[in-house]
């Protein structure tokens, strides 16, 4: 009898506890403020790729390759969206293991109007994260424009978004290895910028140099594109708070300051070297480098730190594009490596230096937490190694199916006419 009573008691205690636990666990509730800011951010980040990045890149190529260059961004927007719908989202944000998600949300299975992610509809979260995958893949093209075979790029985009973007995204944002370690990456310094920059360098090395280098045919288009990137970056960084709160506001503020500081730093660096002129392209490139570097740091650093990060990255990225590239001789046509890999790595490392407990809850080196700097370095190194190896393998596989490189005749005539049968007059 006593045994039965004690069993019942235990059962009741367990039931009671579990009820308490259940009540204590915060049930996700939709927050309309957060949801509307994330809807807006999604539109802003999509605008970064089409037409922002397309114009940024399009102005920098020769006139006979502008259609080809902007069509790459547009094709990628379409293809990555479909991959995301089929398996990309599930592989990035599905529970899975430390290195990759799972297939539980294949074809976005089980997602309906009531699904929530934190305080926003999961549908919005899916679209928002998709725009990041789109811009990451689009960025890579900058290194291989004017010579890449469009058909090969099409296959590469499919494989790369599944086998590189999804695992890296999962490791950093999907609850995988790097996020468990405690690597800080607010808006994608590793996932977006180091990832695309390194993939771009590998692709440029595998595909080889252009036969001749045309000078940028319209820097005005490039400035319009850079400006759209800048505006869109508010969605990119402030949106990465996934809430309309103080963290989002701080991310926006430091984004603006870092972009401005890097724009001025690059302009001054150019003004006192080379042709001794402050070029429009220099200012635009600097601002983009600043935006890249503040991406992992936004939400973790103070405005003053953003100012310093901007100055440093403006000068370092200028040197990487102007000196390092010619010294090493690779043909990264539009400086994806020089701006995104270098700027992204610098940003990720400087996040470990400048992280402020009062801003994002984690202290960096300057507040006595050297461990964070070490973690940031691990994040950078893991991303570089993984991306380099898998991108290389994917390129070799694609090359077995169709040549990575356009024929010499097509390259000479320009890819606009030879690949697309269109041209701008």
């Amino acid at each position, binding site marked *: 009898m006593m045994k039965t009573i004690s069993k019942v008691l235990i059962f009741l205690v367990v039931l009671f506890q579990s009820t308490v636990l259940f009540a204590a666990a915060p049930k996700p509730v939709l927050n309309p403020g957060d949801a509307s800011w994330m809807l807006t951010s999604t539109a802003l980040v999509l605008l970064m790729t089409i037409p922002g990045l397309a114009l940024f890149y399009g102005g920098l190529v020769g006139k006979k390759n502008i259609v080809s260059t902007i069509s790459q961004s547009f094709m990628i927007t379409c293809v990555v969206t479909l991959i995301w719908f089929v398996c990309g989202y599930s592989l990035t944000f599905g529970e899975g293991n430390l290195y990759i998600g799972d297939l539980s949300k294949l074809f976005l299975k089980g997602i309906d109007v009531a699904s929530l992610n934190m305080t926003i509809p999961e549908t919005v979260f899916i679209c928002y994260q998709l725009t990041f995958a789109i811009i990451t893949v689009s960025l890579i093209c900058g290194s291989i424009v004017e010579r890449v075979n469009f058909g090969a790029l099409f296959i590469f985009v499919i494989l790369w978004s599944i086998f590189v973007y999804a695992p890296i995204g999962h490791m950093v944002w999907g609850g995988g290895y790097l996020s468990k370690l405690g690597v800080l990456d607010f808006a994608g310094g590793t996932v977006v910028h180091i990832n695309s920059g390194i993939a771009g360098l590998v692709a440029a090395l595998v595909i080889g140099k252009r036969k001749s280098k045309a*000078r*940028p045919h319209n820097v005005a288009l490039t400035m319009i594109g850079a400006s759209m990137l800048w505006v869109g970056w508010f969605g990119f960084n402030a949106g990465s708070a996934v809430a309309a709160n103080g963290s989002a506001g701080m991310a926006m503020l430091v984004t603006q300051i870092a972009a401005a500081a890097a724009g001025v730093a690059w302009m001054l660096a150019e003004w006192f*070297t080379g*042709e001794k002129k402050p070029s429009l392209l220099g200012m635009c*490139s600097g601002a983009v480098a600043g935006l890249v570097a503040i991406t992992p740091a936004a939400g973790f650093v103070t405005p003053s730190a953003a100012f310093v990060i901007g100055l440093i990255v403006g000068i370092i990225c*200028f040197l990487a*594009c102007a000196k390092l590239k010619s010294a090493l001789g690779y043909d990264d046509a539009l*400086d994806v490596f020089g701006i995104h890999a270098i700027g992204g790595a610098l940003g990720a490392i400087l996040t470990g230096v400048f992280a402020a407990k009062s801003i994002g809850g984690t202290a960096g080196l300057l507040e006595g937490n050297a461990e964070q700097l070490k973690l940031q370095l691990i994040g950078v190194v893991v991303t570089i190694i993984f991306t380099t190896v898998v991108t290389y393998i994917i390129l070799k596989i694609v090359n077995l199916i169709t040549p990575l490189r356009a024929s010499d005749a097509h390259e000479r005539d320009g890819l606009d006419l030879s690949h697309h049968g269109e041209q701008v007059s």
Partner: protein
Amino acid sequence: MKLITAIIKPEQADNVKKALNKIGVDGLTMTDVKGYGRQKGHTEFYRGSEYEVAFLPKTKLEIAVSSKKYKKALETILKTAKTGKIGDGKIFVTNLSQVIRVRTGEKGDKAI
């Protein structure tokens, strides 16, 4: 009758046209051209990389003038196209054997 072909700096073209109008030279043909002379090309810098630009934009003016107006026209072009800096351009003069106005069929000086 003479045909004056003047290759000049694009930014001087308006000055030349206005001055020619003042002395009663009423027609000319303008073409955007590219070329080089003693000035050669120039260098442009993009993100610290040098690009040689071999052919520079110039404006080509073609002006048919009567023998009476020829000297005055030439002086006017020389005066208004000149900036004194390298790259001001060149003027070529050729004899014109015939000029015909398409609408009326007039020929020679009357057609100019």
